[in-house]
């Protein structure tokens, strides 16, 4: 248990509301986890896909998450990312799609040790537009898969990641 973990136990007041942090040991954590994900009974959300997130190639990650769904390129996926990342540890990425019936957006960084970075379910009231900051080990392609119907649609964009000159 490191210092940052201990910090997480402290009570914090959020500008617009109150947050409560509870630290559970792994057994209770599983229960908490189940409570969190089963709060909406009308839809069952899958448990975290460990196999996909730990896969060391994009192909293995895709297979673990989607099985054998066909993949085709699509121009209806917009990836916003920097040309040269200022720092590979914090690469700002936004993804949006206009593909009808999109049910999932998943983002990969091809050269990462574990290429699957994040996966977003497009829920009925959610706009198919997400932003996050992700880690890129080195210059590589960001690959976005959008699931719609029984197919996967793909877009690719390169981000250059360099080693700095001062402060490394």
């Amino acid at each position, binding site marked *: 248990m490191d210092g*940052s973990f201990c910090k997480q136990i402290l009570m914090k007041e959020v500008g617009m*509301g109150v947050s409560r942090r509870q630290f559970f040991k*792994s057994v209770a954590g599983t229960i*908490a986890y189940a409570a*969190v994900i089963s709060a909406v009974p009308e839809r069952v959300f899958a448990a975290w896909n460990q196999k996909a997130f730990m896969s060391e190639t994009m192909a293995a990650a895709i297979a673990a998450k989607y099985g054998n769904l066909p993949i085709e390129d699509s121009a209806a996926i917009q990836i916003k990312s920097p040309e040269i990342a200022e720092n590979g540890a914090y690469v700002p990425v936004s993804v949006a799609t206009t593909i009808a019936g999109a049910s999932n957006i998943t983002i990969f960084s091809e050269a990462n040790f574990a*290429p699957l970075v994040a996966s977003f*379910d497009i829920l009925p009231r959610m706009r198919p537009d997400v932003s*996050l900051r992700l880690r890129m080990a080195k210059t590589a392609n960001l690959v976005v898969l959008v699931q719609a119907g029984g197919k996967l649609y793909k877009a690719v964009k390169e981000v250059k990641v360099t080693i700095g000159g001062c402060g490394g």
Partner: protein
Amino acid sequence: MKVKAVAQNNVVSVKILVQHVMETGRRKDETGKLVPGHYITEVNAQHKGERVFQAELGPGVSKDPYLAFQFTGGSVGETVTISWVDNKGGTEKADSVISAV
């Protein structure tokens, strides 16, 4: 966790910033030992009893994760509840009142 939720024309824009180390499990400490992975695996958001955001994350997401998304059917004054869980069973929940632009 800090949350900003803003409504305009029935569309709510939500931004989340979570204080979390997002340890990848690939980093070595000063003694050369691998620091075990410790990262958020799931984030979701609820509004009026309905799930409006569902994300699976992994160690490829940056430290102090930032997420932004939008959902429809929300108004100023209503509450969005954000929850996350990490791979060690850590969890946090925050209520955020939707404000005007």
